């Protein structure tokens, strides 16, 4: 079930009411669990069976790992999680690569044909489960004995399918205690929910029409159109994901639960390192703590570790060569930046110039992220270089949307990661929220999913 639908809004407030009518934490968690499972099963119920299996497996694995403190058990449990992810997400890609490889030797390979389906949010909840197991092994958190509490921790619908990737140490304590109804959190939660829907519906979904057309038909784009659409995609992907994360945080607050912030104005980054510290923060920190550090971190083979980590980050986003190239290029960029910093080399440019350069680099790399395949990506690069002659002008609506996002970001970005909204006057709160709600009503058209739902 997607957030920008009537079903979700209706269900959300029904369960919210039921939740706050309960006094005991067990009853509240049961309500939350029911809501989460219904939300997850709404789109495709067989995916729920897989999720429940993974949930029970990791619940048991956590207990065993805590008792045995055996690295082998940890390795086994993590492997099972990764294998499930691999089967559902990467098997088709691996098979296609094998077919291509075998084809190089003029041989053919029989490929079993079956319907591939990607369970909703499998990348997110797999990472969350792995983080839990490792944290238990390291002793950072105790394994959860109460199966309901554990199930709520894993399945909380606000963040289940597209993050933020929440650690056990962040969420479990909040679920286990009886939270009194906090009017401030509820107040802030409402604002986050509405603002998040605005970013998602009014900006991301509206821009997607232009971007989809451009990436489906790169040969119809002239130079200006190609760059306009690329910047449009840069805005779209941030608005889509930031909007979703904001909605998730808002929903959490409505239940009295604080979820971690996932974005901190990433396009204001003046270096690629800063970008990764401000973009999809929960994924970046996950990669740092559970991949980069175990590989050796900065202590040994630092640059290799950076490249491997970001390459795998690229692969996590999607099963195709596009995403691998995307990740590798990011890894190389970050490694080069770190190397230059250590050598004491720095570019003396105004902050705005650095920010624009980083943004430009990110936008160019996003061609690989957005294009369906390599040939499309290459065709798009051709249009970026003015390789096609089309008479179409850049749509005014696209420019308006990009401009609107820049203005929104300038004025409201901070209010979506701190509590400054609560300090606004009532008039300002109502005025801003009203504008957001009117924009949501006005722009709500086609039901377009979240980009990150596909991961």
């Amino acid at each position: 079930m997607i957030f920008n639908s009537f079903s979700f809004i209706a269900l959300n407030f029904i369960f919210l009411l039921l939740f706050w009518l309960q006094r005991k934490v067990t009853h509240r968690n049961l309500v939350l669990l029911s809501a989460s499972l219904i939300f997850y099963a709404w789109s495709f119920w067989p995916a729920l069976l897989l999720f429940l299996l993974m949930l029970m497996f990791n619940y048991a694995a956590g207990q065993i790992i805590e008792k045995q403190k055996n690295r082998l058990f940890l390795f086994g449990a993590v492997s099972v999680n990764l294998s499930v992810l691999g089967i559902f997400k990467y098997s088709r890609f691996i098979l296609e690569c094998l077919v291509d490889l075998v084809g190089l030797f003029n041989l053919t390979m029989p490929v079993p044909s079956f319907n591939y389906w990607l369970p909703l949010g499998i990348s997110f909840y797999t990472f969350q489960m792995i983080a839990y197991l490792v944290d238990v092994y390291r002793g950072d958190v105790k394994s959860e004995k109460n199966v309901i509490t554990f199930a709520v921790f894993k399945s909380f619908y606000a963040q289940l399918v597209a993050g933020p990737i929440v650690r056990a140490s962040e969420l479990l304590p909040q679920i286990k205690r009886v939270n009194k109804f906090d009017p401030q959190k509820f107040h802030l939660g409402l604002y986050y929910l509405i603002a998040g829907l605005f970013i998602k519906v009014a900006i991301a979904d509206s821009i997607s029409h232009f971007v989809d057309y451009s990436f489906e038909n790169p040969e119809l784009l002239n130079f200006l159109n190609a760059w306009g659409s690329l910047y449009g995609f840069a805005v779209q992907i941030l608005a889509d994901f930031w909007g979703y994360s904001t909605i998730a945080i808002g929903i959490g607050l409505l239940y009295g639960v604080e979820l971690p912030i996932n974005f901190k104005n990433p396009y204001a980054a003046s270096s690629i390192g800063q970008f990764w510290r401000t973009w999809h923060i929960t994924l970046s920190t996950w990669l740092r703590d559970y991949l980069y550090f175990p590989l050796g971190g900065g202590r040994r083979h630092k640059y290799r570790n950076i490249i491997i980590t970001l390459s795998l980050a690229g692969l996590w986003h999607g099963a195709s060569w596009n995403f691998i190239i995307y990740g590798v290029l990011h890894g190389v960029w970050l490694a080069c930046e770190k190397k230059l910093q250590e050598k004491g080399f720095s570019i003396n440019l105004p902050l705005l110039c650095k920010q624009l350069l980083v943004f430009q680099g990110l936008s160019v790399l996003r061609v690989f992220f957005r294009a369906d395949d390599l040939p499309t990506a290459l065709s798009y690069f051709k249009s970026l270089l003015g390789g096609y002659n089309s008479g179409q002008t850049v749509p005014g609506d696209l420019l308006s949307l990009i401009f609107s996002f820049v203005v929104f970001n300038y004025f409201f970005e901070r209010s979506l990661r701190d509590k400054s909204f609560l300090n606004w006057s009532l008039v300002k709160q109502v005025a801003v929220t009203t504008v957001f709600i009117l924009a949501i009503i006005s722009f709500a058209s086609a039901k377009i999913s979240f980009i990150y739902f596909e991961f």
Partner: protein
Amino acid sequence: MIHKSLYYRNTKMKNLLLFIVTLMVLFAGAELFAQKNFKVLKSFSDPAVFKLELLKKRSGNNLVFLGSSRFLDAVSVEYLNTWSLKENELKLKSFDASFRGPSFDEYLFSIKEILKIKNTDFLVLEWSNAVFSDHKKKIKEVSAGIIKKTDSIENSLQSFVLSQSALVRLRKSISLRSLHKYYMLKTSDKNTHDLWLNPRIFKNIYTEYKHQSKKDLSTFKPEIWESLSTPEVHGQPDKIVRLVEALDKAKIKVIFVRPPVVKEKNFLGESFSSPVGKFPAKFDKSVFIDYSKVSFPNYLMRDDVHLSVQGKVLFSQILARDLALQIRGAE
């Protein structure tokens, strides 16, 4: 301490309740406003219907134009009024109800609506392939659903919300531009808002208003039919019949104008040589002014069927001259 904490909790609760209640009251008010002014607000999202609403707000005797983009790009009512007074000593109050890409049904709908409005004395209708075509059908009465149909619970909820909320049904009218449109409605009697109603505003910067001197218009002479031999146009005869039925009871003078054209667009895929419908013998209310065979220099046309900005300025002068004859004759 407990007292302080209770105080803070009560204050926070008060702020939350105030916020929620204020929003609810605001949207309830907006909903009531939307229900009361539904028809007018709905017109904000439809250029053709919006122009009809503007026309309704105008008082006095109006000369109303109705056509497609060919008329929009050919006629400036501001310029027409100015030149009518300056050159022909005729005070006109003109209004352009034309809109881009009409289907015949929309054209006919607008004609019927204009005829209901009592402040119109002269109706200038475009007579061209464009208005008699079916290349774009829109049905004004149907409101589109908000979200594409997927599962049935979602459909039911959508239908419920749509049926209950005028504000949601008016979603296409919610924009910053709506504020300006509301202002245009309020000032429609005194102002044609000519520049704003044509979407291609930047192409119509009327710098030539200031510099235009009286041109020799004698070379631009149209063909005028006051008899029943109407000019040919590609349109099914049944459409002519429907048009005649709509105009038959009109008490106002109807003038058909065929705008300048380099090469006629054929929307129906028929050959140009096919004769088409003509008005029936008993219909004698209208006059036809045909500019299609008038030779316009290239710089006055921006494509085969649309005038450029300079063309619009000049054609408005020409039309002011020719319409003055018809209007004086009618008086």
